[in-house]
């Protein structure tokens, strides 16, 4: 069983939901990321989505755009991101790590080389925002061969017919984007999300994570009632931005918010 499948199975057995934080690797500098990953696990995170910075993050709002800019300005490369995962794995062999980003840096490295190196570094899954299943035909078998899960997005605009296609193409978990917009934009509507997740479940056996619009303990709790995982990104990245000048404070700042979310999710009945 993959780390991701194992993680969701263990949580399900305990009746708990996955807390999935997103941070951009190398933001504001490379030395922050690995200690931050450990701190996020300490605070109760179950899976880490680690952002591969890109110069043109079209699906992201200003908070993550600026995180990409800070990271790239600090000299982060895709190889550097993989090295952060390798370092993290030296002290943590259980928490799944999913790389999230855009296709072009992966394409520049080469699909085969990327899949090999990512697996060797200890990456468990990959989510490429601008790679829908229709264009993933070349990458999918490479990811399979190297034991990397393929995480795909579903959106409020996704038709039921497409839900089926995406559910069949994905492995690990599915990521439902709770609202029309970029990351960090509005607040989600929990009732609409609940209805949509129910529809997705008709077509998918995979666990469903929900992201976009989750800002605090209350929204994390609301989503944890209907989804298998709660993805939180911009709210954490904003804390990193606020402390970019005191990077030693970042792990505790991010962990603080995650701990609040964890507590709310675990006491949601």
């Amino acid at each position: 069983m993959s780390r991701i499948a194992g993680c969701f199975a263990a949580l399900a057995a305990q009746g708990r939901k996955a807390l999935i934080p997103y941070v951009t690797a190398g933001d504001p500098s490379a030395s922050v990321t690995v200690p931050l990953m450990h701190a996020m696990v300490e605070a109760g995170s179950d899976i880490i989505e680690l952002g591969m910075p890109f110069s043109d993050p079209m699906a992201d709002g200003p908070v993550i755009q600026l995180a990409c800019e800070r990271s790239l300005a600090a000299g982060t490369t895709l190889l550097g991101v993989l090295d952060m995962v390798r370092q993290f794995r030296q002290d943590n062999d259980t928490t799944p790590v999913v790389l999230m980003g855009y296709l072009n840096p992966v394409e520049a490295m080469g699909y085969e080389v990327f899949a090999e190196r990512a697996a060797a570094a200890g990456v468990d899954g990959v989510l490429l925002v601008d790679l829908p299943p229709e264009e993933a035909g070349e990458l999918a078998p490479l990811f399979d061969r190297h034991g990397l899960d393929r995480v795909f997005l579903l959106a409020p605009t996704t038709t039921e017919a497409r839900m089926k296609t995406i559910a069949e193409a994905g492995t690990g978990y599915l990521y439902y984007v709770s609202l029309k917009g970029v990351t960090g934009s509005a607040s989600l509507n929990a009732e609409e999300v609940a209805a949509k997740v129910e529809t997705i479940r008709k077509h998918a056996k995979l666990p469903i994570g929900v992201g976009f619009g989750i800002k605090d303990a209350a929204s994390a709790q609301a989503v944890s009632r209907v989804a298998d995982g709660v993805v939180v990104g911009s709210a954490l990245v904003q804390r990193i931005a606020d402390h970019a000048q005191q990077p030693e404070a970042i792990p505790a700042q991010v962990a603080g918010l995650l701990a609040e979310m964890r507590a709310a999710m675990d006491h949601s009945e």
Partner: protein
Amino acid sequence: MTQGPDYAAFPDPRGHFGAYGGRFVSETLMAALAELEETYAQLRDDPVFRADFDRDMAHYVGRPSPLYLAERWSKKLGGAQIFLKREDLNHTGSHKVNNTIGQALLAKHMGKPRVIAETGAGQHGVATATVAARLGLKCQIYMGAEDVERQKLNVFRMRLLGAEVIPVTSGSATLKDAMNEAMRDWVTNVDDTYYIIGTVAGPHPYPMLVRDFHCIIGREARAQHLEQTGRLPDALVACVGGGSNAIGLFHPFLNDDGVAMYGVEAGGDGLETGRHAAPLSAGRPGVLHGNRTYLMEDADGQIIHTHSVSAGLDYPGVGPEHAWLKDIGRVQYVAVTDKEVLAAFHELTRVEGIMPALETAHAVAYAAKLAPTLSPEQSIIINLSGRGDKDIHTVAAMEGQ
């Protein structure tokens, strides 16, 4: 007679031109693109839609645009006869309006009350604001903050037409960043908004439908050249940023094997300096803005800043059909420098009384090199894609006036 592929059969049903094109967007936009694809598939051969388009082309845009023999300039260069396809005489002053008329008809058909667009030099922004005014659509235009500064005249024109111009300060504050921001807007307002992409790039079906609307340029030019000379031209020359005016001229000639084609990219300070916007000449394939194509990127796949004197060509990518035409060798892609462009701008203005846009002046500059290598029995068509009024301040500033 043709030995090449059946060019009309491209893109394939999933939007690919060979290895290029496709639909690389986040999931939220997939439904909107599918809807656009279906709508266009229904309408592209619909006689009523075509009649609407043709009528607007004739009576609103002023087509057909003339094919003008630049006799004095041709003599001066001492080689081929040079014909100018006068897209600068279209309403709004460039070829861009062919596409915005077509897409606005699609937006109207799809019942979208709001249109958005990205713009570099502002020509596409003006053409979009124009059709939006005419159809009573709400219109917002994303434009890099640097371009807002260097294309003030067009910014004012857009505002007069009732559009809101939103300066984009992220990244390099030029055309690529404006396109990022337009995509972000679309993903947020996808229910009521139609995104009028201004070039033959972006996710399928945009490269195909923008091309189709601009093919009127090449169809007219082909018939006009036959009528005026009794034969086909020997070469076509057009500037290439995203590549919409070039594909519009080239496409109807692709099956004519004897017609050579040259797409002229922005060489900026020179390809060897790295300060340019010439992905086909000096970039490599990658994925940006919804399609696979040639890009200006670093070794790590990050998009690099481009440089060109012309805001409209200052873009790190290019339409996927051009990427494919380059690989199969049907079109030659070349680059000219800012300096050569400026000289060409003055040359055409002084010799023929026609002031080209700085984008267009790239094609003029290359044609000035090509013409003397051909004989007076041969001919070249330049796509004179836009007028230069918008650029006079840039030219003055560059020359210290």
